[in-house]
């Protein structure tokens, strides 16, 4: 029944995939944090450049105006242009596109703000040219102030949400984790917005909802990862192990879960994008799905590559985790920690728990860390 930590090393699987499956990985995430920093910096740089160079492709909900979806049985883009010109509508800023959907192709016509009477008149004219009844045409009218109105509301909601979340994480975990989690979340939303700008996807209220979902998902994912970090933190608190090692152990331990969660969260979204929007042509769905897909990918990435290193950096600055001269644990030693670190000492009751503090000298070896008696669990939660 009882196993020595040493026996694990004999069973380490040869293939990387099998090691991943068995939770035997020993990737030095913290040592390679610079890679994450470079990737994120490049993405953020691209975002800033793109936002300045071409901005966001805002839908009529943010600019104000009127749009029609006219069934394109006989109706063409040229017809739409003709109707607009004939009604002497200012075509500055107007947009006419042919779009496909499950129910047949339609022409999407968008113009800047016009009067209600004009809009109604145009609906009639489009219907006449297209040879359909007015009911068959989808009309959207948005006042110019509506977009800024909902944006302001969203920003206000965001600020209050950030405050609440910061307080919550500070109480349940600690303030450094709150800072790291919120930083990762902002990173995700900014990069999602950047990709929208880069590829010129239209920003609609659906996109805003999707961005808000990203925000929640990113935090959710980070908290799951941090929960494990905190667990390891108490486990290694009494030993001379750097915080980077705590992060490394935790990341390796949660890696399989993160991979599986990403797959099982992203599969439905990919299905929404490919089957819903691609095959069946529901365009509103693609608006949601693209933003969600981007957000989920960055959300999972940032928990491991942004939130965790940020937390480690903040922690190393703190007095409690100052570990000057303690060697960074990698390779086989890290693997031993990853494997042993997830069970408490009782599981290995057979092993001898000789006193450890005296054994730990300048550089801590994995075995000495493991043999150290874990600090008794605190009754009071921080």
């Amino acid at each position, binding site marked *: 029944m009882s196993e020595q930590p040493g026996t694990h090393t004999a069973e380490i699987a040869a293939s990387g995939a099998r090691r991943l499956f068995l939770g035997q990985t020993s990737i030095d995430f913290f040592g390679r944090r610079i890679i994450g920093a470079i990737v994120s910096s490049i993405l953020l740089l691209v975002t800033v450049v793109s936002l300045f160079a071409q901005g966001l492709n805002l839908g009529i909900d943010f600019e104000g105006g009127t749009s029609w979806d006219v069934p394109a049985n006989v109706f063409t883009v040229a017809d739409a242009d003709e109707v607009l010109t004939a009604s002497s509508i200012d075509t500055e800023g107007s947009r006419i596109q042919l779009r496909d959907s*499950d129910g047949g192709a339609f022409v999407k016509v968008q113009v800047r703000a016009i009067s*209600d009477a004009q809009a109604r008149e145009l609906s009639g004219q489009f219907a006449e040219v297209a040879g359909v009844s007015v009911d068959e045409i989808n009309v*959207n009218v948005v*006042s110019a102030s509506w977009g800024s109105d909902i944006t302001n509301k969203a920003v206000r909601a965001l600020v209050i*949400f950030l405050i609440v979340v910061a307080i919550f994480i500070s109480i349940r975990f600690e303030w450094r984790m709150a800072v790291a989690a919120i930083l990762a979340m902002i990173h995700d939303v900014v990069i999602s917005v950047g990709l929208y700008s880069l590829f010129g996807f239209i920003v609609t209220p659906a996109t805003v*909802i999707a961005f808000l979902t990203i925000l929640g998902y990113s935090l959710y994912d980070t908290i799951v990862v941090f929960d494990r970090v905190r667990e390891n933190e108490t486990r290694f608190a009494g030993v001379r192990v750097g915080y980077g090692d705590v992060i490394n152990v935790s990341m390796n331990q949660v890696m399989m879960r993160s991979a599986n969660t990403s797959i099982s969260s992203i*599969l439905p979204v990919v299905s929404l994008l490919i089957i*819903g*929007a691609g095959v069946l042509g529901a365009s509103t769905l693609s608006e949601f799905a693209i933003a969600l897909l981007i957000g989920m990918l960055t959300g999972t990435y940032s928990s491991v590559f942004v939130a965790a290193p940020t937390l480690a950096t903040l922690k190393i600055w703190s007095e409690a985790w100052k570990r000057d001269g303690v060697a960074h644990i990698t390779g086989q030693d890290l693997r031993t920690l990853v494997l042993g670190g997830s069970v408490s000492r009782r599981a290995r009751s057979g092993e001898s728990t000789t006193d450890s503090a005296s054994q730990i000298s300048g550089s801590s070896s994995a075995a000495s860390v493991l043999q150290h008696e874990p600090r008794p669990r605190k009754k009071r939660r921080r």
Partner: protein
Amino acid sequence: MSSRRLRWGLIGFVLVVAGLLGLNLGFGNQPILGLDLQGGVSVILQSTDEASADDLLVVQDLIRDELETLGIAEPDVRVEGSNIVVDLPGVKDQAQALEAVDVAGIVSLRPVLACQAGVTPNDIDEEALVGAQALITTDGLQTCVVGPPGGTGEVFERGSAEAQINQLTNQWIVAVDLRSEGQQRWNSLAAECYSGAETCPTRQLAIVLDDIIQSAPTVNQPSFSTGVEISGAFTEDEVRSLARVLNRGAFPVGVEAQRVETVSATAGADSLRAVFIAGAFGLIATLLFLIAYYRSIAIIVISGLAVWGALVFSLSALVSQSTNYALSLAGITGIIVAIGVTVDSYLVLFERLKDEVRSGRSPRNSGPRSFASTWRTIVSADLVSIFASAILFWLSVGSVKGFALYLGLTTLCDLVVCWFFTRPATILFTRRVAVEQGNILGLGGSK
């Protein structure tokens, strides 16, 4: 905890959920679909001036009455923050619906200074009119110059205007009652016009809505006690529409449409079908992945998701029936995202279980231990989602609000299912496995 208690708890919970689902299905209680899924018209209105919450409620009631008199079934009119949201699902006649909701302004009462037939307000030099305005009449035949408003439609009793036939003249008239608070104001206007004073030389008092003169009756008595009759060479339609204008006249504030969205019924049905098919594909793909990865214990995820789905369906039905927040495309997307988050609670649990078993603990022992630490993680993570949805629900408008509601609902269901279903199911499952020493989680038997 004894297996017996766990088993009964599990069975009890499943029965409750099944009972809820059965009741909902039995009574044909389904989630109400938003109009982006069933087609219809949605309008978001905002007041043009500062409006108190009471003012908005009055406007909300007036719009609802207005829609009901037009025969639009089940209009969904509600106040959200400083906005009024009007959802008209299933409405086919867009033009009629838009007109009904188009409650641009307040009815004002303005003395008529002069009228001229055959001209439009554009022909009249606005600069020459001091405090006055040139407005066109409803039939478009003449333009009248009217003085500044002497009162608003609020002098009339709300909803009291009705079309009648005068027994003596056999003509269509509109009868409307005066509010006790409005009587004085009305009478001072009437007296002014009746006397043909400089401010009202034509003796006509115009009833103006949306800068259009709805009617300009001549005042033929200096004071009115309780009610007013407006007569003229009216047709029945004219009288009815004037009565409607007067009833609508009691709007305390002006409102204007911020956003009008119409979705044709076919487009709505297409979206619904697409989201269903895509959702089903996504779900099946996820389940296949989980079965391939976790083998036999995946039965807990699959049955857990089934229970979760039943609970979400029942609660969505109840919530959408009782609160008017229909299940929109945004809401359904929220639910699809929630599938991922819900599956994640199982993944966190199973990975933990794997760790424990791998390190030599017996499955029987690992089950409760893994759940305890997973529960802590899930509660922390889900609470953040619940905060997010609560704040969004509180502060947003329209479709975002619906989305937040369903996101919160599904997260809550996740927590409930996790505690009442996953906990006993996992513990019982690991006990069985412990007895059989079977292969768990693809790790090989634990000896």
